């Protein structure tokens, strides 16, 4: 949805900053730009019509309908070949990937709980650190820092 190339717009603006240039083809460029501008309006109107929407929809639908038997046959042949070579099928790899994601979520939940425990312990530390003031707090802070450092992938990229 956001792929629209606006490079041309930027370049036009920046080109103005660069100052005028001597160009023997300026007249040709002016004609070309006028033509493209009028063509652009025509094409924008054309793609906005119901007919265009129906035509592209029909083309896509035909492509999908015609290609389905070939794709299914290919999938079936590929599945058999993979079985022969004792290799996992796409569906099996997908199932594995889904399990990985579930595991990641479980780990993230555990990480969240661990953060909360460390935070609550840090918060309660001053009231129970009567014997060695500050010592418990320091170790808790170190534990949290270590925990965060472990979580952090440390992949700083430039």
């Amino acid at each position: 949805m956001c792929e629209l190339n606006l490079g041309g717009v930027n370049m036009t603006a920046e080109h103005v900053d660069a100052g005028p240039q001597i160009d023997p083809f300026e007249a040709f460029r002016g004609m070309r730009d006028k033509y493209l501008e009028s063509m652009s309006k025509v094409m924008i109107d054309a793609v906005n019509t119901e007919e265009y929407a129906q035509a592209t929809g029909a083309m896509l639908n035909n492509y999908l309908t015609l290609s389905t038997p070939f794709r299914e046959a290919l999938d079936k042949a590929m599945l058999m070949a993979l079985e022969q070579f004792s290799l996992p099928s796409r569906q099996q790899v997908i199932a594995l990937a889904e399990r990985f994601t579930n595991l990641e979520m479980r780990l993230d939940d555990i990480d969240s709980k661990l953060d909360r425990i460390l935070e609550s312990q840090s918060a309660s530390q001053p009231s129970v650190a009567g014997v060695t003031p500050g010592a418990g707090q320091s170790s808790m802070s170190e534990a949290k820092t270590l925990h965060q450092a472990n979580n952090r992938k440390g992949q700083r990229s430039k």
Partner: protein
Amino acid sequence: MTPATTSSNNWSVLERKLGTFNRLMTTKAAIGQTPKDLIWTLNKAKLYHYVPVVASEARHRVPLLLVFALMNRPTIMDLRRGHSFVEYMVGRGYDVYLLDWGVPGPEDKGMKFDDYVLDYMPRAIRKMKSVSGSSEFSMLGWCIGAILTTIYAAMRPDDGLRNLLLLTAPLDFSNQEKLTFARWTDEKCFDVDKVLATFGNMPGEMIDYGAKALKPVENYVTNFCKLWDNLDDPRAVEAWHAMNTWVTDIFPMAGGAYRQLIVDFYRNNRLMKGELQIRGELVKLNRLRANLLNVIAEADHITPPCQSEAILSKVGSTDTEIYRVRGGHIGIMAGSSAPKQTWPHIDRWLGARSD
């Protein structure tokens, strides 16, 4: 100068231009270069924390989370050195985080807005809060990212979201006449279930074609003519190369989310009607209470202004503002006027609400 010398010079100019053109078409520019740390991952999603350049005491207290669309790289927010929204915001003293959704694989074809909003965003936000040490945060959503952040803000109003910035937000689909996408994806013309049954995810090439076909002459012809005209201007060439690198980096959109976008949003306008359900829970926009800045691109043909305007009358926020910018869907944030118009306005609005 003899005619032979002139002819020789013309040939060398043409040769140089062709060389530059060929380089631009066959290489990728270095985009997304602002230094950052990867602090969280889940499946393909990644949360980045940009390395602060302002001393902690001078920094804004409330961190900013950037959320971009599902079908393009978020590097558009950090396009190139000296012309990067991220770099600008980091330089203005914000603690900036970026949620990159990544590229969905075949195993993600069932992923829906429900998953992004209720599984991924809360976890990423928790990690951001943990790293920043702030219980409050700001969120900026752009394009589909604005849909996700709006739904999140409405469903989790007590999660510490203080400021919500929406950029070119496609939220209201009631004015079907003005929406070319709505015409193309109408159920009379487009069988979304058949497409997704075939491909699983919505292929990036089809999404790319859909976006470019809205202005076919500009995107397929004029764009390259303008490039040719400006090949001797290094600044223009650099800008074009960076934008082209981003534009051509296409990837699929998760099938479940694409289906929702077409059926729930484009065809039935469920969010604005108050009928959108996310994992069984009704999304009530009046529960959204965060301060709201709604940035609208006046020349946006992908998300026309009519899609973004109505949100303010639906939310429960008391501090709201609409900011209209001359420019297109991407140009308002990545175009040459963005550092003079859009970015400073965002900074002024957010800066006053981030301490």
